[in-house]
């Protein structure tokens, strides 16, 4: 259903949509993931906070742009220097093109276009309300303090509005590919759960049952105790105060008209995610706790029949010994030129090697466990960098780790 007509832009000959692939990609190598990058219209990067989702999203976008596609990377909260690299200094909710000269300066020929946009969550909500709520209701709604809660503090609201923005961009059909970097969530589940939470909030049967008479009467100033004379409402008001409840009821009345809009959009977003136009990239690091969460999230995505392009394991400790066993201090001392330098150097080198080997070993164990649990999804590993990722050149190097040996298609 979502195979919208595609314009031919950039790399020729890949426009034709093959018959729908199965929802679960069976890619086991980076070539398959690269194919996704070349063919899909939406890539969603998900994962726990602090694993490098933004970096991976930007890397994928840069690579696709180098391949000739017109790409938008939609990011939430990039590191300052990465934001600068993308030209995202003071942009809130406006899209801007990354200067092709910047990309060339990083040693990459941009055959396509790289665009970036930083999502301002509060403004996205306001825009959404402006589009979907009639003028006369809008003002009252925007002023209501419960609206601010809905747009900022309600669990799932950030995730919801990010997908909403993604959907809007996708529908506008200006880009070949949109890469979404999702907000940091406390739990991986939050991202998938977001639309349901918002709909629960709006549907709120409890509100209808507790406050139906007041909502029907449609008048201000109704005392809570008059709300159907409900003893439940009375009990609640002892906890919250009467006025709080009244204001909340009024808010619910204003926003109830949006329920159908939300429901419709949520269904469309869900259909887009499960379609062959989209794919998810699951970003993780090699720490045990994060790996556990990634395994869990992978299973949830499969249950939702959402196509998963790859698991990207970021910041993996390198194995300097490449499978060799640790040397002894005497061996190292012998290898160091005799008589040169501090006699404790061999010992310090050995300690450093031991620490590195211990980290690499631990990472490998967790990532092998992850691979076994997420089979047959491809697992792409990016080594830990010893310096921060600052610029487009760094992103390009990460891309080379993601897709080793794969040169951009010409």
């Amino acid at each position, binding site marked *: 259903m979502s195979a919208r007509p595609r314009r031919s832009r950039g790399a020729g000959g890949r426009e034709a949509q093959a018959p729908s692939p199965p929802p679960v990609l069976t890619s086991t190598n980076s070539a398959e993931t690269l194919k996704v990058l070349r063919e899909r219209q939406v890539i969603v990067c998900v994962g*726990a*906070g*602090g694993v490098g989702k933004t970096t991976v999203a930007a890397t994928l976008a840069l690579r696709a742009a180098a391949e000739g596609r017109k790409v938008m990377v939609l990011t939430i909260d990039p*590191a*300052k220097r990465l934001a600068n690299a993308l030209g995202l200094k003071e942009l809130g909710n406006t899209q801007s093109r990354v200067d092709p000269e910047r990309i060339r300066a990083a040693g990459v020929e941009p055959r396509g276009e790289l665009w970036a946009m930083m999502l301002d969550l509060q403004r996205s909500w306001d825009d959404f309300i402006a589009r979907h709520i009639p003028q006369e209701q809008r003002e009252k709604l925007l002023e209501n*303090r*419960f609206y601010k*809660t809905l747009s*900022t*503090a*309600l669990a799932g609201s950030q995730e919801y509005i990010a997908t909403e923005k993604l959907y809007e961009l996708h529908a506008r059909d200006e880009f070949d590919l949109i890469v979404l970097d999702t907000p*940091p969530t*406390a*739990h991986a589940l939050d991202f998938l759960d977001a639309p349901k939470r918002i709909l*629960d*909030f709006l549907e*709120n*049967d*409890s*509100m209808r*049952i*507790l406050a139906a008479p007041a909502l029907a009467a449609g008048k201000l100033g109704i005392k809570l105790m008059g709300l159907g004379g409900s*003893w*439940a409402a009375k*009990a*609640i008001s*002892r*906890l*919250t*105060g*009467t*006025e*709080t409840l009244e204001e*909340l009821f009024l808010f619910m009345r204003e926003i109830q008209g949006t329920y159908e809009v939300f429901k419709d959009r949520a269904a469309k977003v869900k259909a887009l995610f499960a379609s062959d136009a989209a794919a998810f990239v699951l970003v993780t*690091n090699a720490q045990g*706790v*994060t790996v556990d969460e990634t395994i869990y999230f992978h299973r949830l995505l499969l249950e939702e029949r959402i196509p998963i392009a790859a698991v990207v394991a970021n910041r993996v400790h*390198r194995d*300097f*010994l490449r499978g*060799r066993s640790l*040397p002894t201090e005497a*061996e190292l001392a012998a*290898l160091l030129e005799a008589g040169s*330098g*501090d006699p404790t*150097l061999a010992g*310090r*080198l*050995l*300690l*450093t*090697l031991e*620490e*590195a080997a*211990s*980290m690499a070993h*631990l990472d490998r164990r967790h990532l092998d466990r992850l691979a076994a649990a997420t089979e047959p999804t491809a697992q792409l590993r990016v080594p830990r960098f*010893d310096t*921060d990722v600052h610029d487009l050149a760094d992103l390009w190097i990460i891309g080379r780790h993601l897709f080793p040996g794969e040169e951009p298609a010409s």
Partner: protein
Amino acid sequence: MSLLDRRLLITAGKGGVGRSTVSAALALAAAQSGKRVLVCEVNTQPRIPGLFDSQVQGDEPFPVAPGVDSLVVRPDPAMREYVLMKLRFETLYRAVFENRWVSRFLHFIPSLPELVMLGKILFHVRERHWDLVVIDAPATGHGITFLGVPQAILDTVPPGAMHSEALWMRDLLVDPDRTLVNLVSLPEELPVNETLELAGATESQLGMGLGRVFLNRFVPERFSADERRLFPPPGADEERAPLLDAAFRAAHAQALRAERSAHFRERLQRGLDLPLTALPQIFHPASFGAAQTRELAAAMIREGL
């Protein structure tokens, strides 16, 4: 007045920087100086008990180490407790609040779940059931929202039960003699930026006092400048014995990270007028457990906390 003489210490920071391990080690360090400590997590996959080789046991505090108790606060049990306290009758609670509609409704009252969770913890602080309470706060943005709930309620909710609860809680949080916020960071760009922003938000937005910065996974300088010149990968015409090459590459990475650690320590010290504790990376064979928590607590004490 030292850090550990406060009643409440809150551990704040970006996701993935090690807030839980720092909270656990801080609690242990305090217990080792003779305090009885409660360390709390808020509505999350519990991590603290595992850091003491223990497991979660129910919704009440339970011992995880000598002098240290652990508490995992969840919205539903906390709400039940709060409601019971206010309504006094179990039967009324059952009739009203175990009604499906009512309980859903309560979850949608903005900030009420956060208020009752925070309230449960602060109640223990106020009643002095423990000498010190440590809160492993939610990650940055969520943490600010969580700690800002009492003030947000005072600003918006008309006087009533929620309002008066919020009042004593806010007063406890903003009193630097009783409560301080400790920040956890890593020697990397993003976490350091976020720490600087978080420090600003804690003082200006929340009006709370700051204690210390814990710079986690700090890599100390191990090689001299002369030695470091040996390490970079060799040119095309040079060759190194494979083992020596591995050792030099590992040492090169270590030296770069040590340089970065020093750089970010300086940035934190310049940007924040706070005492800073650099904590080493703790190596462990499989998972971070009680032995590693003890090691981290020892490092904290060694560094003057």
